[in-house]
C-alpha cells in the first residue's frame, strides 16, 4: 500500500512528462517502465536477451533459487491506470497472446476492464483487440521481435 502509493506519485509525474509529448511518446512503454520503476519480467521474458530498450529490469524471480523466500525489490501495485495496464501486459503477455486469440479468458477480461471503465464495452473492446492483434501477429517478422517489442505492440493497441 505505502510503496504503491509512492510509485503512483512517481508514475503520475512520469505521465505528466510523457503527456506533454506527442502521441508516439504515450506509446513508449520503456519510459513508463523506467520512470515508474517497474521491471519484473516474468516467464519467458526473463531469458529474452534480445530486448533492446534500456529499462530498469528488476526481477523478483531468481530461477535457480525459486521464489518462495524472496521479496520483490519494488512493488508492482502502481495505481495509475496506464502504468497498471503496461505492467499487466508485460507480466502476462504469453497468457494474453493466447486468450486474445481465443477471444475470451480471465486475463483478457481483466485487461478489458482495466482499459474500459464500463462493463458493456468490454466485449466490443475484446473483439476489436482480437482483430488488431491478429494483424500484428500475422505480419511477417513477428517471430523475430523481442519480447519487449511484442509487449509494446500489444500495449499500443490495448490502451
Amino acid at each position: 500500500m505505502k510503496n504503491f502509493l509512492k510509485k503512483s506519485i512517481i508514475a503520475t509525474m512520469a505521465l505528466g512528462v510523457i503527456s506533454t509529448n506527442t502521441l508516439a511518446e504515450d506509446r513508449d512503454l520503456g519510459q513508463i517502465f523506467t520512470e515508474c520503476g517497474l521491471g519484473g519480467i516474468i516467464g519467458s521474458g526473463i531469458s529474452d536477451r534480445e530486448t533492446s530498450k534500456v529499462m530498469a529490469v528488476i526481477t523478483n524471480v531468481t530461477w535457480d533459487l525459486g521464489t518462495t523466500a524472496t521479496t520483490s525489490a519494488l512493488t508492482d501495485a502502481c495505481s495509475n491506470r496506464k502504468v497498471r495496464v503496461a505492467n499487466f501486459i508485460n507480466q502476462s503477455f504469453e497468457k494474453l497472446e493466447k486468450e486474445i486469440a481465443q477471444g475470451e479468458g480471465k486475463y483478457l477480461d481483466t485487461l478489458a476492464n482495466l482499459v474500459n471503465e464500463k462493463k458493456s464495452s468490454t466485449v466490443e473492446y475484446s473483439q476489436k483487440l482480437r482483430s488488431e492483434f491478429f494483424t500484428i501477429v500475422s505480419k511477417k517478422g513477428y517471430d523475430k521481435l523481442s519480447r519487449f517489442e511484442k509487449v509494446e505492440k500489444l500495449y499500443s493497441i490495448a490502451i
Partner: protein
Amino acid sequence: MKIFYIYLILTLQFIYATQIESNEKLTLLSQKSTWLKLLYYDLDKKESDVISKDYFLAKDGQKNPLKELKATIEAYSEAFVDQNHSTCRFPARYKWLSKQIELKNYKEINPKCKELIESIKETKIDSLSLMFVSGYLGNPASSFGHSFLKLNKKGKNLNNLFDLSISYGADVPKNENIFSYIFKGLTGGYRASFSDKYFFSQDLIYSNNEFRDIWEYELDFSKEQIRFFQLHLWEILGKKLQYLFLNKNCGYQISKMLEVIEDETFVDSANFWFAPIETFHKLMQIDNSRINNKIVKSKKFHPSEEKKLYKRFQKLSKLEKKATTYLITKEMKEKLNRFELTDLNKIDILDFVMNYYNYMITKSKEKKKYKKLKREALLMRFLLPTKRESSFKFKNISEPDKDKKASLLSTTFNYTKEREKYLSIAFSPYSISNSNNELKVLNIDAKISKETISLREFTLFDVKQFNYYSLPFENNLNLSWQTEATLKKLNIKDKSYYDSSLKVGFGKSWSFTNEAFLFYTMLNLSAHSYSREFTSGIEIGTKLNLGRVQLKANLENLVKLSEKELSYDASILTNIEIEKNKNIFFKLEKNINEPWLFSTGLKFYF
C-alpha cells in the same frame, strides 16, 4: 495558611495516587496480547522480531513493550508537523489504544494524514484469503510450501487478478549463490519484510512458471477485523524483520499477522521449526473447536498450469487426441483438414496446443522454436470463433489441512532374522509423503537396548519426485528423480561401523486410477564412506493409496562397481491410519550387509 498547606498535601497525594494507578494500568496494557502482537514481540527472545528502528517510538521500544506503549501515548499529543506524526504512522495502535484508555479527540484516521487516507481509499478489502502454495522440490527454500494473504475485493470487474496479496520473504540479492543462500537462510543472514503485489503476479509465478498448485482458504473476518488489519498493514508493510528459514519464515510471520486481528494463537511453538502448512492445520483445529464463528468460510483449489494441461489432454475425445498428436508431431503447417473435425473440435485442439506451447516455452531450452510454433497455432485459432476455455474439476486433491502434520515421531519394535529384538525411536521435523513426492529431512533413528541408546540411522535428506504426468508426443523424458544422504550403522561380522552415503537416482514413473497407484523405476548411483566405493542399482517400486491404508514396496538390485558383487535392498511397508495423525505400520526390509528385518510400530504426526 494552614488550609492552603492541607489543600496542597491532599492535591499532591491525589496526583501521586493517580500516577500509580496509571502506571499499573499501562503495565497491564503493555502485557496484553494485542499490544504484543502489534509489536511482533517474541516472548521467548523478549524482544520484537521487527528490527527497523522506525517501527518504534521509544529508544528501546524493540525490547520494552511498556516503554513503547508509553512513548506511543505521549506521541499522540505531540503537535502535528508532517506525515511522520505517530497517528499517521501507527493508526492500528491508536485504534486499539482508544478502546483501552481515553485518547482526546480520537479519530480512527487523522484527517491530516493524507498519504494514509489515500492508501486506505485505494485498497478496498472485502475479505481475506489465506493462500497455500504447494512445495517445489526444485528449490530447497520452496520445498516446504509457501503461504501468503490475498486481500479480496468484490464488485469490481477485475476477477481476482488485481486483488492485492501480502507476502513475507527474505531480501535475497540477485545471483546469490546456492551455498550462501542456504547458509544465510538458516543462520539469520537475511532481512525480510511484508510486501504487496497484485495476485496476478503470484498466479503467474507459482501456477504458470513453477507449476505449483495454490489452495485458497477464504476467511470469515468481521468488517471491524478487516479494518484493523488494513490499518495494521499500513504500519508494518516494508518494515524489516530478521528472516530465519526454519522458524521465522513466511508461514510463521503470516500467522503472526493473522494473530493481530484474531484473538487466537496460530503459532503454538516455533522454537526450532515452523512449516507454512501448520497454519492451515491450526485454522481447522480452531474451527473444529467452535460451534459458531468459524474462521474458514470456504476453500478453493487453483491447479497449476501443468495439472490443467494434462487434464485438458485427458478430456479431449479420441479423435481430438489423434489430431492434436498429429499437429504437434508433424509440422504445424499441416492442416487439420485431414480429420473430420467440427469448429468446436478444432477450438479444443488449438486451445490445448497453445497451452502446451506456453508450457514448453517456460520449461524447455528451445524457447525460440516453441514461440514460433505457438504463433502458428495462434494464427489458426484467430480464424475460429471466440470461446472460453473449459474448466475442469479435480478429484481426490487433498486439502492442506487434511494432510498429516509435518513432524514425525515413530516408535518401533524390531525383530531380525537372527532373532535379535529391540526397540527403536525415530524423529523428523519434516516428513511428508504425497502421491507424487516424498520429502524427509533431519531424521534421527535410534536403537534402544537394555544398556544403551545408539544411533541406527541419520537422514540428512531423502527426496523423491515422481513425475508421472506425460503426454504421448512429449520428446523430453520427464524424469522422476531421488536423492538421499544418510549415515547408517552397519553390523558386519559382529562389529559396528558407520557408513555415510549419498545416493542419486533418475527414472520413470507411471500413475493409474486417479493417482492411487504409482509404479516407478530408477537407476541409482551411491557413494559409500565405509567401503569407499560406489554402488549402482536398478530400483523398481510401487505405492498404493487405498484411503486409510497405504502400501509401499521397492526392490533395488545393487552392484558394487569395484568388485562387481551383486546384492539387493528390498522393503515392503504397510501403513494403516488409525486417526488422521496416527498410523500403525508393518515393515519387512532387507538392506545391503544386513539380515532381514521385521518391524512394527506407531507413527505420530504433530
